[in-house]
C-alpha cells in the first residue's frame, strides 16, 4: 500500500487519539494538589484548624476540609463554601490554564446535603409512581439538582430541570 492509499481514519480511531491527548486522571490529581495548597495556606493565615482530603470522583477532583470548627467557612445555605469553591477553581485555572470543575466540601456540608437530597429524590419518585402526577421540587443549585436527578433515575423515573437560575427546579415525571 502506498502513502496515497492510506484509508481515512475511522471514528473509533479518532476517539482513541482524542483520549490519548487528554489523560484525565493525572490532571485531576494535580488540580487537587493546587487546590489543597491554596486552601491550606488560607487556613494557616486565618488560624483555622482543618485537614485537607483529596480525591477524584468520576471526572472531577474533590477536596474536603475536615475537622475543626468550620461552620463559618460554610455559611448560611453554603454561600461561603460556594464562594470558596469558586475562588479555588479560579486558582486552579490560573495555574493550569484549564477550567476546573473541582468540588469543594467543608465540614461534610455537601456530603450531608447529598444524603438529604438523595432521600428527597427517592421519596418523591415513590410519590409520583403512586399518584401518576408530575411533582415540582423547590429551587436548588446545580449540584443539588444533579443529586436529585440521580436518585430519581435510580428509582426508575425521569426528571428534568425547569426555570432559570437561581430559581431553577427539578420536576419528577411519571413514566
Amino acid at each position, binding site marked *: 500500500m502506498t502513502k496515497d492509499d492510506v484509508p481515512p481514519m475511522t471514528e473509533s480511531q479518532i476517539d482513541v487519539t482524542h483520549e490519548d491527548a487528554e489523560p484525565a486522571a493525572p490532571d485531576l490529581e494535580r488540580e487537587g494538589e493546587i487546590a489543597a495548597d491554596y486552601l491550606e495556606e*488560607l487556613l494557616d493565615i486565618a488560624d483555622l484548624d482543618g485537614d485537607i482530603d483529596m480525591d477524584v470522583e468520576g471526572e472531577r477532583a474533590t477536596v474536603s476540609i475536615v475537622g475543626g470548627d468550620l461552620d463559618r467557612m460554610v455559611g448560611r445555605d453554603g454561600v461561603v463554601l460556594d464562594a470558596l469553591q469558586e*475562588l479555588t477553581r479560579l486558582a486552579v485555572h490560573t495555574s493550569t490554564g484549564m477550567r476546573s470543575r473541582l468540588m469543594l466540601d467543608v465540614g461534610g456540608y455537601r456530603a450531608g446535603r447529598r444524603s438529604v437530597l438523595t432521600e428527597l429524590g427517592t421519596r418523591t419518585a415513590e410519590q409520583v409512581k403512586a399518584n401518576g402526577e408530575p411533582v415540582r421540587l423547590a429551587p436548588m443549585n446545580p449540584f443539588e439538582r444533579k443529586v436529585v436527578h440521580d436518585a430519581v433515575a435510580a428509582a426508575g423515573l425521569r426528571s428534568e430541570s425547569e426555570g432559570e437560575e437561581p430559581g431553577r427546579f427539578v420536576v419528577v415525571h411519571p413514566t
Partner: protein
Amino acid sequence: MLDEALEHLVRGIVDHPDEVSVRDRQGRRGRTLEVRVHPEDLGKVIGRNGRTAKALRTVVGALGSERGVRVDILDVDER
C-alpha cells in the same frame, strides 16, 4: 490577618501575583481593605458580573469577626 488572607486569595487567582497589595484602612465609616492588582488582572479579580469580587467579599466577611468590612478593588495606578 484579614488583609493577609485577602492578599493570599487574590494572589492565587492572578497572572501577576507579585503586584498584589492590600491596604487596611480604618475610616469613619468602618474598615476597608483596598486590594491593588496589575491592570491586566483587574478583570480577573472582578469577574463576570462582579462574581469573583463578590466571592472574595463573602469569604473575607466570613473570616472577619467584625461586621461589614469593605473590600475595594483597584489597579496599581489608582491612588
